[in-house]
């Protein structure tokens, strides 16, 4: 995070007041596990406020050093401020991750089911679904855990938050758990197919599409799990 304080502060801040304010911005940046774009926006906004405060104190007769000290006292601990930002973002991120998992789950499931039907023994979709789940029993357990966790995560923000009072940290934990479950589920499906292919079974083009779809979701779910876990840890 080197240089975060330098770039976030407006250029017209008194050079004598800058070092303390840069330290403040740097510590705030270190407590924000968000995207670079979101972090830049938050730091620019807080940096503008710090500059306003220093100007006000200097206009009242304070030296640049005194103005910087008074400003930092006025703004409160950067760690507390970072935790407050992280708390708000944890709820929103959990909501988005939960929604994404709930929406993409049936799509990924249908692609795999289509692959099983294409490869199957003419059992019909109900029979193939049962055959798919019994072939990979772990997947049933994963589904039973992931779906409720993803639904709980959606209550981190939005309309669901008004119906189900879930704290942002709890929603982030649920989102993280659901995303890790998705990674496990997709890994199980892909591994099952690889084992089947190694035993000599034909791999249809639909199965290749299913692997591709699962690989994309697995990657995105892994990143989402990491982000949610980091926000949960940073939130108050």
């Amino acid at each position, binding site marked *: 995070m080197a240089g975060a304080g330098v770039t976030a502060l*407006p*250029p*017209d801040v008194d050079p004598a007041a800058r070092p303390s304010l840069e330290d403040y911005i740097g510590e705030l940046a270190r407590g924000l596990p968000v995207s670079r774009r979101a972090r830049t*926006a*938050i730091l*620019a*906004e*807080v940096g*503008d*406020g710090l*500059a*306003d*405060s220093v100007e*006000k104190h200097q206009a009242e007769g304070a030296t640049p050093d005194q103005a910087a000290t008074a400003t930092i006292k*006025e*703004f*409160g*601990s*950067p760690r*507390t*401020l970072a935790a*407050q*930002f992280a*708390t*708000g973002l944890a709820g*929103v991120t959990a909501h988005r991750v939960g929604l994404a998992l709930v929406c993409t789950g049936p799509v990924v499931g249908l692609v795999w089911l289509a692959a099983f039907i294409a490869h199957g023994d003419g059992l019909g979709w109900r029979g193939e679904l049962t055959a798919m789940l019994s072939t990979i029993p772990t997947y049933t357990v994963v589904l039973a855990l992931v779906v409720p966790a993803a639904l709980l995560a959606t209550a981190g*923000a939005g309309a669901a938050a008004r119906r189900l009072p879930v704290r942002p940290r709890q929603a982030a934990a649920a989102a993280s758990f659901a995303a890790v479950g998705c990674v496990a589920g997709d890994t199980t499906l892909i591994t099952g197919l690889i084992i089947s292919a190694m035993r000599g079974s034909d791999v249809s083009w639909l199965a290749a599409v299913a692997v591709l779809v699962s690989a994309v979701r697995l990657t995105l779910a892994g990143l989402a799990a990491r982000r949610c876990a980091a926000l949960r840890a940073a939130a108050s």
Partner: protein
Amino acid sequence: MRAEVLKGHLDGLMLAALEAGPLHGYAIMEALSTNSNGTLNLPTGTIYPALHRLERAGLVTASWSSNEGRRRRTYSLTAPGRKELAAQRANWREFSTAVSAVLNGDGSWPAPA
């Protein structure tokens, strides 16, 4: 006044500060301090996450402007924000009337049927 005393009222106070027109974060904090004769002196940093929360709830909108290399984020009330402010004012009047009546022991609340 300590921040925890204001818990639950900060949203209404920020919406009220924006009623007269768009302001940036530090100006909102200054308005709260000035309009309360210095009584409402919160840690200034608190205002920014709270404003982001109001923005996510659709009660305020934010826009960036740039002047001489200085980027500034300014907030404005939305129509739902004005509605929420009116609701918070009504709730506060009822709450403060009730608490005053109980604390002062004048028996003026609730109003007799």
